[in-house]
């Protein structure tokens, strides 16, 4: 069954069970400069593979960009 998530402020529906699989499903290519928070908590990259995602989760996917 599809799960309803909020990813970077947008309603997104996914089938995947874990964070890493969710990222793959929405075509985010993992790179070492990325960071992810689920429900306002940072999830370290080494835990993405096993981190279970549930319906209603709020996910932030960020990376460094030009800034002052």
């Amino acid at each position: 069954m599809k799960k309803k998530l909020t990813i970077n402020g947008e309603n997104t529906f996914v089938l995947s069970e874990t964070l890493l699989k969710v990222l793959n499903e929405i075509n985010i290519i993992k790179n070492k400069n990325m960071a992810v928070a689920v429900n306002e908590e940072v999830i370290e990259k080494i835990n993405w593979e096993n981190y279970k995602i549930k319906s209603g989760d709020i996910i932030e996917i960020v990376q460094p960009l030009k800034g002052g």
Partner: protein
Amino acid sequence: MKNFLSIGNKKFKSRLFMGTSRYPNHQVMLESLNAARTEVVTVAIRRISLKKYNENIIDILKKKYFILPNTAGCYTIKEAVLTAELAREALKTNFVKLEVIGNDEDLLPDVENLIPAAKELVKKNFNVLPYCNDDPIVCKKLEDVGCSAVMPLAAPIGSGMGIQNQHNIKLIVEESNVPVIIDAGVGTVSDVAIAMELGCDGVLLNTAVAEAQNPKLMAKAMADAIKAGRNAFLAGRIPKRFFAKNSTTNKGRIHLIKKN
């Protein structure tokens, strides 16, 4: 003589920190950073686009510079702390330029939220460099909660107006036990020179170089100003006087005798 700028466990030879925003293109940015002889560059933390290609400049910058992530655009303690934590995960650094702003009109720091945000991040083992008002009391409080440096503004971000309250900056320098880095509001080299003459430990700037007619040349000029201003501070300027004081002695001058 103190040749290095020490913040936390880091030592920097250059006292000029550079932002990476608003340059005409990447090439000009990289050339300007090089001309500025900087070691520290700032970056922002932003959401990845789920729809289009996300540019990645960090790998290039990482090779040469110490990356200082900021919490630009954060209005609350919660947003700022989470952004700093995401930055730490993304960049594997404990350093953060902490910004908690009051509104997006004047981009001035919201001190009521800035100080507790700094306190929380210090507790989480961050080296906190807060963008703050040019207020000696605020700077002292930020030092007291454990900030690694204080970064009072010269003037509002991007305004280019230069140091608006030299007296306050001087007080901050005299009372501070952590490095004082002027952040925001610099317009040109004289602003940088004044900051360094006042005894500041460094300057962080962005728009003044990125939006100059010739960013690369302005970057070089800024680096020269840092050096000149720092040397002038170390050399110790003369006090200002209200009246003239001759530099050549009167002794031995010719003295004609007036007739009638």
